[in-house]
């Protein structure tokens, strides 16, 4: 039996080719994801190893009670520590050197006059010390004063600067001319980060004006034990009276921690990519299942013969599974190659963007094993149902000529599908209703579960829906392309299971696209209405680095064309109620002059009065107030390393645009924030009387220009800028979903090609009674388009319906408007038609080339 099975694979390799290709695509994605992750790990490990070569590090003690509530920063919150500790520590026995790490953000203007940004990687400045073993000047000289700077080798390349060039730096919010004096080698690829070296004094003055730094690196003498040194350093710190706020960590632990953080982050990326790999494998499984269902049917008589000469059903069953395993193994092996090819392409693409990835493309045993096993398991599972059917057909029935297709009832399927769909819809409706009645209810996970139920239900129901939906979709074709439309309709509805599983690839892809496009359109519309409702400013000024340089703020505020310029700063503080015993929470707060509200910005006040901010009272976001149980009049203690403010809650507001828990007046904010002037995230500008918007804009744009990274936008531009960020995210999603469309095309090609083989006699007959080649090709194209459009319509319907529930559930997260982007949906339908025509090309040509006589006399 094994011989029979293997001979068959060889004989039908072409027929199985598309199944193999489907496995290849899915496995490529999986293998590529693993390889990419491995490579990213190596790259970042190298950076960690190159960046943390110290034997001991001093840093702020971890504040276990305070976790960042909002924002992207992962890990614990740490205080800063006094830089002078470096001197104390360098006296410790066995310590060669202790350096305070003066570092912070910087903007470097490259040779082309724009800010240097390596593919979204950070840009920061470091104090140069000739003693620092992580950085050595490889060319030129180290910077000696504020008029000089050095660059990491690759950063210099990316900036297009050579030694002796003078350029602009935006340091500590001020514009600063400096000359490049040297290049610094850090011993590893910095993954696109722009690293600027300043002299010690300049860096210390800029990044530690209060003498506080986040870390101190300690280098031991040769042959000193890490752990012993750490203990001694710790003792010295305690002796200096800073034991409770400063902790000493060994270099090994520090590197380990950094690596763990990176691994966690890469884990998210990996999960995200694996989801798409999973979708493509799932979709590929339908192709394999279809292929086997059809080949099994064609070989029914062969199986009957095998059964007649004594093969058991189990033997027939396993002979088919052996073939599936071969398909899976071949696909898996090619998929590994494909994945590595994919990663090579990604590596060179990243390299071209200035983000070099370290390390060779890795081939790990686990990756190979997982990929192969995945390919084989997916194939075997997909082939199991058709194989079982083949094995159970009684030999006599299978021998009979023209035995009709076993048309199993769709009733059970219909019931299961309806139950899943009903349960899913119920969960979605419950989530929406609950969210609508109770703003603070978190119903996202219920919605997610419901969505899965609805999608699974729709997949199960698809064959039941196929006949009626396809009849409607085919109506234009049957009316206008007689009799081809009717023939095509007959072909796609003849086996609804097959058509539905062929269409399911597109269905899944289009479901996600439909949901994403509704979500994106709604988000954009919500942003627009939020900004239009809340912003009273003529211009909105922001910075690419997140913080508007202080120099830009003062320059713009001083312009005669500017009537009002309200700077809004952002920082995070510890907040607690003095009356409560709860640990303080780390919350984000905005700081601005109280007059900002009503002048350049307006929000809905739920309780109290925003004007109370001028008395130093605090405004709290409604969501936060509800969660914390704060009311107007409650006393809050807001503290930072710099100071403490105790003030009552003066107002509770609700703003979708200001996404921070607290808003404080500028005086209180400045007393808390270490560098309030450097924390301006947004500057709201209104024209002076008699100055029109164009005049204002050109004046402000001119003033902002030297700062390179500062953008000046009116409300419309501000909104479209926000919208284009959403579009960018959507583009990535579309690119990944493009994969499911590729697989969908493969699936349709596969089904059509096999059904052409299956229908050879019928095609011969129709050609004999006068059907032309073009007419035959058109019929197949219509079949293909119908299948593609069926999947698309079903997918979009499910996706849009699910996404329509989102604004209610996530209304309090700023998603207020529901917009259905009909234009995009129509585009998707057009794409489906194109996909259909493309997929039909090869099978149609094959069918048209069938010799009539052979086709009509074939067995």
């Amino acid at each position, binding site marked *: 039996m094994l011989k029979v099975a293997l001979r068959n694979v060889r004989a039908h390799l072409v027929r199985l080719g598309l199944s193999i290709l489907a496995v290849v695509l899915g496995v490529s994605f999986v293998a590529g994801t693993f390889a990419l992750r491995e490579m990213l790990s190596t790259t970042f490990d190298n950076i960690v190893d190159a960046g943390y070569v110290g034997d001991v590090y001093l840093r702020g003690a971890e504040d276990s009670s305070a976790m960042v509530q909002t924002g992207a920063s992962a890990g614990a919150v740490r205080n800063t520590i006094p830089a002078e500790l470096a001197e104390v520590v360098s006296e410790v026995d066995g310590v060669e050197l202790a350096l305070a790490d003066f570092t912070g953000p910087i903007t470097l203007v490259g040779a082309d006059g724009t800010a240097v940004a390596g593919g979204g990687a950070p840009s920061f400045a470091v104090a140069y010390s000739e003693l620092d073993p992580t950085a050595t000047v490889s060319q030129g000289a180290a910077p000696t004063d504020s008029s000089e700077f050095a660059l990491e080798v690759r950063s210099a390349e990316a900036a297009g600067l050579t030694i002796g060039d003078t350029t602009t730096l935006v340091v500590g919010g001020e514009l600063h001319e400096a000359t490049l004096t040297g290049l610094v080698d850090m011993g590893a690829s910095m993954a696109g980060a722009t690293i600027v070296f300043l002299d010690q004094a300049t860096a210390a003055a800029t990044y530690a004006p209060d003498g506080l730094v986040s870390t101190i690196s300690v280098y031991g003498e040769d042959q000193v034990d890490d752990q012993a040194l750490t203990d001694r350093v710790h003792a010295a710190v305690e002796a200096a009276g800073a034991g409770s706020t400063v902790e000493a960590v060994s270099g090994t632990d520090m590197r380990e921690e950094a690596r763990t953080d990176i691994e966690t982050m890469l884990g998210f990326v990996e999960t995200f990519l694996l989801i798409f790999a999973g979708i493509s494998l799932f979709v590929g499984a339908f192709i394999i299942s279809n292929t086997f269902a059809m080949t099994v049917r064609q070989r029914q008589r062969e199986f009957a013969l095998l059964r007649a000469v004594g093969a058991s059903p189990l033997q027939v069953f396993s002979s088919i599974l052996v073939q599936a395993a071969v398909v899976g193994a071949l696909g898996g092996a090619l998929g590994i190659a494909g994945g590595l090819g994919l990663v090579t392409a990604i590596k060179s693409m990243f390299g071209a963007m200035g983000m070099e990835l370290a390390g060779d493309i890795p081939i790990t045993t686990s990756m190979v094993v997982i990929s192969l096993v995945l390919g084989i398991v997916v194939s075997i599972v997909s082939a199991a149902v058709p194989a079982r059917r083949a094995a159970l057909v009684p030999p006599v029935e299978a021998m009979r000529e023209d035995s009709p297709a076993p048309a199993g009832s769709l009733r059970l399927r219909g019931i299961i599908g309806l139950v899943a769909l009903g349960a899913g819809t119920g969960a979605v409706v419950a989530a929406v209703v609950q969210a609508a009645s109770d703003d603070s209810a978190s119903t996202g996970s219920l919605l997610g579960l419901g969505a899965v139920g609805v999608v699974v239900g729709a997949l199960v129901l698809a064959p039941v829906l196929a006949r009626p939906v396809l009849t409607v979709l085919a109506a234009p074709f049957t009316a206008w392309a007689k009799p081809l439309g009717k023939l095509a309709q007959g072909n796609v509805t003849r086996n609804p299971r097959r058509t539905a599983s062929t269409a399911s690839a597109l269905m899944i892809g289009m479901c996600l696209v439909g949901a994403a496009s509704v979500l994106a359109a709604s988000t954009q519309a919500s942003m627009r209405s939020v900004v239009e409702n809340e912003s009273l400013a003529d211009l909105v000024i922001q910075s690419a680095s997140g913080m508007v340089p202080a120099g830009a703020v003062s320059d713009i505020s001083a312009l005669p064309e500017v009537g009002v310029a309200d700077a809004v700063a952002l920082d995070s503080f510890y907040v607690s109620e003095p009356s409560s015993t709860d640990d303080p929470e780390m919350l984000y707060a905005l700081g601005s002059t109280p007059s900002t509200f009503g002048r350049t910005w307006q929000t809905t006040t739920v309780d109290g009065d925003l004007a109370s901010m001028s008395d130093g009272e605090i405004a709290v976001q409604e969501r936060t107030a509800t969660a914390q149980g704060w009311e107007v009049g409650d006393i809050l203690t807001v503290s930072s390393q710099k100071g403490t403010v105790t003030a009552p809650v003066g107002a509770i507001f609700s703003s979708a645009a200001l996404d921070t828990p607290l808003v404080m007046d500028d005086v209180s904010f400045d007393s808390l924030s270490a560098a309030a002037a450097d924390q301006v995230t947004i500057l709201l500008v209104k024209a002076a009387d008699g100055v029109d918007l164009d005049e204002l804009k050109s004046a402000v744009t001119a003033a902002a220009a030297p700062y390179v990274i500062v953008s000046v936008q009116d409300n419309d531009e501000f909104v479209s800028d926000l919208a284009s960020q959403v579009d960018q995210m959507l583009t990535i999603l579309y690119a990944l979903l493009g994969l499911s469309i590729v697989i969908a095309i493969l699936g349709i090609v596969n089904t059509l090609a096999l059904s052409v083989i299956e229908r050879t006699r019928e095609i011969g007959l129709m050609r004999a009674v006068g059907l*032309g080649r073009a007419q035959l090709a058109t019929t197949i194209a219509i079949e293909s388009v119908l299948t593609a459009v069926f999947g698309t319509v079903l997918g979009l319907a499910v996706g849009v319906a699910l996404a329509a529930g989102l604004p209610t559930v996530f209304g309090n997260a700023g998603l207020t408007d529901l917009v259905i982007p009909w234009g995009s949906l129509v585009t998707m339908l057009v794409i489906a038609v194109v996909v259909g025509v493309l997929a039909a090309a090869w099978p149609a040509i094959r069918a048209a080339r069938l010799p009539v006589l052979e086709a009509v006399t074939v067995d």
Partner: protein
Amino acid sequence: MSVPPASPPSRTTAIATARGLVKTYGKGSTAVHALAGVDVDFARGQFTAIMGPSGSGKSTLMHCMAGLDTPTEGTVVVDDLTVSSMNQRQLTKLRRTQLGFIFQSFNLVPTLTALENITLPLDIARRPVDKAHLAAVVKAVGLSDRLSHRPSELSGGQQQRVACARALVSKPSVVFADEPTGNLDSVSSREVLTFLRSSVDELDQSVVMVTHDPVAASYAHRVLFLADGLIVAELAEPTPDTVLEVLGSLTRQKAAV
């Protein structure tokens, strides 16, 4: 559009003619001559049967006449059109407008109803359906109450009668039938053959049928006998007995060689 003449059938003009027809499969020493130089005329308004043992070339002759196969040498003319020199496009058009086909099995498109199957050639050619003619044909094959059924809901005999109706509905010059009763029981066979004969007698249709069944052949006006790619005998107004007799003598001749 050439329509068979309504005048009384003239037995002298041929509706289809082959001259020096040779069909060779393979090359050199392995070449097989399916047809070794056949000259034949199929009379207008006649029912002609072609008989012969397996491998005698009877099916090949019919396929070449019908433009389904291209002869190696020789010419085929159907209703004044030279079939043997036509390209694929012209052949498709010829099949669509001038010829009717009935095959041994798998004659119908399973996704279409009986009526849709009958009008399929007209629909493909985008020609209007002659309602009166359609009604006459449907009535003649006795399928009036089965028109909305799918092929899978019809018996084998009924399916072949639908195929006959389909072959006749476009008023072709010639109907080619390849073993039309090969898969049928004797009752159904009689129905189909009676219908084919009456289409000739009453509708002036010309029919060419390949068969190996002497009873089926006896429904024809004339029987041609093929052996080894040549026409070796001919019989007018056959009966099953006379057909068997000729077949028997051919077998004896062959055995004697």
